[in-house]
């Protein structure tokens, strides 16, 4: 078992394997997103309260969900890298951070675009979801800034892994504290279409979008890890072979 895992985590092996896996993410992911977009934009009925404005949900919810998934992934792989000293695992964490930050950003932007017609304002300090999402963006920024500040890759890996883990411990606390804070005087101001109460014509495209986004996220992540690995191993023989081979093809 250990042997197998170590072989899997060896950079050249990962590089070959991931090349084969990526299409299995890209193709279904694209299909799901296309289905979700068409079904969501044209076939789902308008919301009885929000009219067509609700359709931004098909971007917003997958983005928000992935922003959290990416942080979990980043923290877990950083932890694995730190404890078992697996370099590939650090590469995954490093690759996940910018993606996660983008999804967080996307969730914030789509959310505030949605908020404009819904609440009449772009931003509402009173909402715990918004606030903790913003704090999560700062966590990503902190992680990336720390990485950028350290030249040496192995050192950057370890230092940022410590930060990711400390952040992971804090995320539930942040969420909890923000909720408690705003529940003091606000609360009822936010009108929210609650998930499960959705008609299936709305729900299926949404589920398709979430799954599709996740698959595309997986593909992007693998792609980023691949280039990260290539860069990190740029001195090794197998990378030179890879480069030579691609040179011959091109």
């Amino acid at each position, binding site marked *: 078992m250990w042997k197998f895992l170590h072989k899997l985590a060896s950079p050249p092996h990962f590089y070959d394997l991931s090349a084969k896996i990526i299409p299995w993410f890209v193709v279904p992911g694209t299909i799901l997103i296309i289905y979700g977009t068409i079904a969501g934009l044209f076939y789902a009925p308008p919301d009885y309260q929000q009219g067509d404005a609700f359709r931004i949900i098909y971007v917003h919810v997958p983005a928000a969900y992935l922003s959290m998934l990416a942080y979990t992934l980043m923290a877990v792989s950083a932890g694995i890298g730190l404890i078992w000293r697996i370099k590939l695992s650090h590469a995954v964490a490093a690759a996940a951070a910018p993606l996660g930050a983008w999804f967080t950003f996307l969730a914030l932007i789509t959310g505030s675009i949605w908020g404009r017609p819904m609440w009449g304002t772009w931003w509402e300090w009173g909402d715990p979801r918004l606030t903790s999402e913003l704090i999560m963006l700062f966590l990503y920024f902190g992680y990336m800034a720390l990485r950028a500040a350290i030249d*040496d890759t*192995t050192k950057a890996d370890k230092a940022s892994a410590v930060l990711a883990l400390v952040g992971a411990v804090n995320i539930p606390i942040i969420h909890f504290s923000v909720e408690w804070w705003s529940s003091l005087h606000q609360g009822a101001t936010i009108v929210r279409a609650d998930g499960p109460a959705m008609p299936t014509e709305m729900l299926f495209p949404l589920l398709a979008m979430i799954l599709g986004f996740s698959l595309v996220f997986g593909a992007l992540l693998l792609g980023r890890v691949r280039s990260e690995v290539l860069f990190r191993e*740029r*001195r090794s023989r197998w990378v030179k072979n890879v480069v030579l081979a691609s040179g011959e093809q091109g």
Partner: protein
Amino acid sequence: MLSGKDLCLLRGDRCLFQNLNFALNSGELLLVEGKNGCGKTSLLRAIAGLLEFETGQVDWNGQSIMADHQVFCSDLVWLSHRVGFKGDLTLVENLSFETGLRATSADLLEPSLDRLGLTPLTGLPFRALSAGQQRRVALARMLMAKAPLWMMDEPFTNLDSGGQALVRELIAEHLAGNGLCVVASHQDIQLDAPVIRVPL
């Protein structure tokens, strides 16, 4: 007692050395020699456990130093370019901090200072000392510590000729008392004790 097997160290993406082996017993000195930039400082830091080797491991009394780093550290005193004293404290305050950290004999404090010519300077804050005086205070730390293994990176730096002779004397005494030394230096060490040379 101190041995390294199959050591390889990367800095940036250059390999400084590989397949380096050594074994050092009580009363012997390991002299790391080489041109500027060949990796002497890096080797010393890695042996002490401040840097990680890419491959290989260093054993102290038959056990990997990283297995229980604290045990190894209790046998070690370290002297480097940056001597690790506080500029605002006097040298006595600085040295007595050491007694909380590691096994020392506090009654050695005054004789050590005396021997290193530091006695008239006890009232000054450390930052007011000259480059060579600061190095001498670091030597006092080594004298006070009861540790068999001395690691010294360029121990002669900034010392006048009297100071350099003193360093040789101290090392010779330490080796005679069954201690071990690991030294990186450009100057020749000129000792009678057994010297194991590691050319990098």
